């Protein structure tokens, strides 16, 4: 019995000593590991320096660093590290040396989503890793090393810093050459209304790179699912600019998208999916976004309407200081399809000197800018009915009306001939020539010269009449055919009648079988 108790006591002591020894060994191991991890390893140091060197060592990067926002570690970096790390998690497998992805994927939730978004993004696809924006050491699988501020870890950049983070690479010509994308976005952004407000007024509500291009899910601008894809740009801009609460304080309207949707441009882009149609960025710019001014609007519209701009430049309007520009007659977001009906008001309006002249300084200098109401965008808003220029505008309208009517009449006759089953290829060709001249005549209105418009309009009338003659000849031929058909039918009817009579005669003489 006593022997047995001695054995139990021995085993109990041995077990306690064993457990204590194991605990001590484990503690020693953890401490040793921590100490080793704290001491800088030559390879990790080289990697970290290399990463930051790539970001800041280039001429472009150093060039922008002086003028742009400088990057520095943020307190949130530590918070992020402590908030998202999971002690005791199994050692992550390194994916292409990017332990950020491996760890953040394992954390799950929003971190997993971010990691996946990055992997699918244009950055992830081209080997631009987390550390390129957030800093740190992506080769280490230890949170204390990978997200160490002394290794350049920046955490979540502030909105001001973000612009610089993106600009660091995207203004590097050497780096961007391989992707065939421009490097002036950051420089342009600094000139934009957005950039000015952010960098000078410290207004963080304005758009920065990530608001338009995405944060971790950056896509190519040519990707139809990208927010900056041309068809998606109006929705992107309006996400801020149509929000009255968000735009409060900026003193700009928030109904642009609704107005744009009804315009000829909005219809072409959003309804017809015509990528040639302008979106917000086409006129306002993207990185250098700012509203066109009265001195730039002609060039802005002329980017697409090249031929029209050339015609406008020949006009008297273009010669005038503060004279009418594109938007004076066509509006801005609410551009509608132009027509001859837009020349004059149904009845002449009361002309007020202040409509076109600056009354404030009493110099009566011309100041034809924009008219808010579409109804005011007419020739007789500025040109009095008794004026010579009004008569000239009337002459222009009259020439266009005549050409337009001749063209429409030709189309009607051609349609009638085609309806009758006639081949109207010749008429089609000629009426197309008429249409070309009519388009040229309408465009010539921008020269404000009656002779220019009238010569083109006369050409349109001539061709339209020619086309109408072709169509009328086809219609006459169709009529002739139908008249001839009646004669042929009469002959066939007589033949049938004769045959029936012959047949009836046979019936009388034949007895079946």
């Amino acid at each position, binding site marked *: 019995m006593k022997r047995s108790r001695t054995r139990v006591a021995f085993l109990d002591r041995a077990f306690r000593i064993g457990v204590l020894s194991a605990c001590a060994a484990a503690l020693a191991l953890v401490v040793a590991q921590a100490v080793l991890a704290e001491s800088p390893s030559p390879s990790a140091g080289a990697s970290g320096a290399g990463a930051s060197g790539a970001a800041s060592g280039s001429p472009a990067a150093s060039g922008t660093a002086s003028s742009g926002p400088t990057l520095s570690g943020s307190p949130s970096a530590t918070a992020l590290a402590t908030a998202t790390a999971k002690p005791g998690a199994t050692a992550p497998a390194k994916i292409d040396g990017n332990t950020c992805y491996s760890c953040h994927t394992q954390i799950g939730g929003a971190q997993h989503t971010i990691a996946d978004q990055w992997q699918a993004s244009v950055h992830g696809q081209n080997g631009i890793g987390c550390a390129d924006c957030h800093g740190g050491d992506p080769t280490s699988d230890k949170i204390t090393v990978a997200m160490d501020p002394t290794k350049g870890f920046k955490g979540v950049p502030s909105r001001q810093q973000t612009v610089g983070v993106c600009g660091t690479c995207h203004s590097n010509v050497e780096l961007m050459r391989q992707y065939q994308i421009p490097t002036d976005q950051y420089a342009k952004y600094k000139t934009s209304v957005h950039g000015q407000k952010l960098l000078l007024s410290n207004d963080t509500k304005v758009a920065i790179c990530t608001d338009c291009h995405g944060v971790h899910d950056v896509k190519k601008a040519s990707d139809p699912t990208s927010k900056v894809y041309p068809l998606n740009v109006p929705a992107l801009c309006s996400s801020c600019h149509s929000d009255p609460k968000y735009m409060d304080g900026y003193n700009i309207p928030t109904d642009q998208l609704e107005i744009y949707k009804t315009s000829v441009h909005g219809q072409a882009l959003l309804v017809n999916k015509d990528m040639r149609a302008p979106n917000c960025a086409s006129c306002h710019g993207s990185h250098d976004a700012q509203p066109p001014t009265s001195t730039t609007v002609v060039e802005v519209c002329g980017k697409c309407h090249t031929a029209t701009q050339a015609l406008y430049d020949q006009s008297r309007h273009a010669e005038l200081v503060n004279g009418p520009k594109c938007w004076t007659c066509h509006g801005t977001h609410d551009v509608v399809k132009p027509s001859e009906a837009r020349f004059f008001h149904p009845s002449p309006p009361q002309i007020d000197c202040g409509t076109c002249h600056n009354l404030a300084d009493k110099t009566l200098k011309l100041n034809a800018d924009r008219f808010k109401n579409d109804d005011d965008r007419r020739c007789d808003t500025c040109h009095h009915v008794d004026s010579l220029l009004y008569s000239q505008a009337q002459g222009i309208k009259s020439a266009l009306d005549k050409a337009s009517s001749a063209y429409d009449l030709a189309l009607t006759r051609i349609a009638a001939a*085609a309806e009758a*089953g006639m*081949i109207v290829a010749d008429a089609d060709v000629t009426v197309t020539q008429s249409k070309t001249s009519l388009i040229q005549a309408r465009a010539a209105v921008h020269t404000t010269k009656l002779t220019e418009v009238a010569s083109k309009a006369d050409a349109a009338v001539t061709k339209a009449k020619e086309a109408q003659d072709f169509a009328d000849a086809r219609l006459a031929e169709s009529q002739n055919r139908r008249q001839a*058909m009646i004669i042929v039918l009469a002959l066939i009817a007589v033949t*049938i009648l004769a*045959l029936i009579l*012959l047949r009836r005669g046979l019936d009388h003489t034949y007895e079946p079988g």
Partner: protein
Amino acid sequence: MATQTTAAPNGVVQWFEERVRATALFNALLHVPIPAEAKTYYLGGITLFLFMVQVATGTLLSLYYKPTPEAAYDSVKYITSIVEFGWLIRSIHHWAANGMIIFLLLHVIRIFVQGVYKYPRELIWIFGALLFAVTIGFGFTGYLLPWDQKAFWATTVGTEIAAAVPFIGESLLQLLRGGADVTDATLSRFFGMHVLVLPISLALLLAAHLTVVHQLGIANPKRPSLRPGQLPTPGIVERWKPFFPHYVLDEVIAWAILLALLVVAASVYPAGLEDKADALVTPPHVKPEWYFLAVYQLLKVVPAIGPLTARDVGILIPMLAMVVLVMLPFLDKNPEVAKRKRPVALIIAAIVLIGMGILTWYGGQIPAVAVAAS
């Protein structure tokens, strides 16, 4: 049974008669009796008339038509716009082609409903079914020849149907088109088929069809033909009427009416011509010619069955239908011809015809999207 015969003539005719002995031939061909109860509605004869119109107008058109992609469209435009009565010849050719398919279809329906494809006229039916296939081939190959947008794209989607045939579809498509796409090779072979292969095939099949019809005579739809050793039903007296001139005269009156209809159609709705074929400009709504719409639509609506894809099912159904059509006299074991004694066959045929009609109508509808776009 007595039949009239043509007496030997005198003079010049006598001179030829002595050298050709045509009177005996005409007597054998024309002076045959047909059942007085026979009701053909002249459908087969009208189809024959339309074929003759096609031969005549087609020959005239071939004098001006140039079968190359560069010249085809302009030559058709030239025929329609410049050549004297070219528009009339082309329009009659166009309408007679459609009429030929319509009347052939009606002829087949008449034969089926009257049950006159049964013993001993199985071969007549088989030759007729093959004639139907050749006529469809005429329409299909001729449709491409104007080389306008409608022709080009209808042929593109029409030949796509052939690609759906299991196993040999792609090869069949290549064979039809002479390559992967509709090109000058397609136009050449379609023209060759249209003016050489198919006319010869149709002429031979027609000769065989009419020869057997002549040998067996026109069937009586009231009662089945007697088999060897079978005695006629007591009390029923067979009544006859002469084929010539009575039936022939009726047929000629029908042809004259058809000719009048062709003249009206050609004058009021002349054959049109769209823009020249352009492989790079797809029209908003492409569909094949009306007689292919049922098959075309079937390909779209049938579901997959077991290991067969929807496409396989869609093409196997019309192929199977064609086999059934050709082999019908051997599949239909019912010897009766009276309609009330063949309810199942007639109900099945009615369902098939109504189904084809619905599919054709459905396939002919322009999709709402296309309408909005246009």
